[in-house]
């Protein structure tokens, strides 16, 4: 067994476990902490896939900014009442999720698996290459994303503002 295979299996088992904890924990704060762990594990997978820049941004933006926002809202609203368990919904939801997972996995493992073409290229996934692609081919989407973030900021302030 290769070291990368062991890393992949350990990380993916932990990732599935933490994702299940996000869905099955009853306390919202526990869900949020499990989601932080899952995001960190996905960042580790990004690092193993030659995407160090995206992995760092995943930790900074997701585990840093977005999850702090979630925890802040949980603290702000302080939802003390535990949600009721609906057996029917959980059964139907689990059935749908199982069918979806089975179908997607069958579809995705259907084709020929690609070999490893970029093992020799050291620069792949470096910030330089990412920036070159981002600021040449994807300039317009980049600008649109900045406008979208501005709209999101203004919208959040307007929505969450206390009415006089």
């Amino acid at each position, binding site marked *: 067994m290769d070291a990368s295979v062991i890393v992949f299996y350990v990380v993916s088992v932990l990732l599935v476990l933490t994702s299940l904890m996000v869905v099955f924990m009853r306390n919202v704060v526990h869900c*949020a902490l499990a989601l932080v762990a899952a995001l960190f594990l996905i960042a580790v997978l990004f690092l193993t896939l030659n995407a160090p820049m995206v992995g760092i941004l995943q930790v900074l933006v997701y585990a840093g900014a977005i999850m702090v926002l979630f925890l802040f809202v949980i603290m702000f609203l302080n939802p003390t009442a535990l949600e009721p368990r609906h057996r029917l919904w959980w059964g139907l939801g689990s059935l749908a*999720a199982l069918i*979806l*997972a089975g179908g997607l996995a069958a579809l995705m493992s259907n084709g020929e698996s690609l070999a490893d073409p970029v093992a020799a290229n050291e620069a792949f996934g470096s910030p330089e290459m990412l920036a070159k692609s981002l600021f040449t081919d994807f300039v317009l989407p980049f600008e649109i994303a900045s406008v979208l973030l501005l709209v999101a900021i203004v919208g959040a302030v307007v929505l969450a503002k206390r009415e006089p």
Partner: protein
Amino acid sequence: MVTLNHYLVLSAVIFAIGVLGVLARRNLIVVLMSIELMLNAVNLTFIAFSRFLASMQGQVIVLFVMAVAAAEAVIGLAIIISVFRHRRSLDPQDMQLLKW
């Protein structure tokens, strides 16, 4: 040897877990978190394809997905705060004013 299919199957499983959270949970904050989980599963497929097809475009798309996810989380949480202020509840079953 970890192949592309390993990553694709893993992200399919994570996506299905996120779908389960959206379908079965009765708490708006956890529903939003499950959506984040689904977005991350899709990001994982993008990064895996980018690696195995040796193309940077997948990684750039993931950056855009992150920006949209941040905007979505901000707006979603603002709506949740605003709804909670009116209804004192986070249960999506209580929000059926438009349902007939």
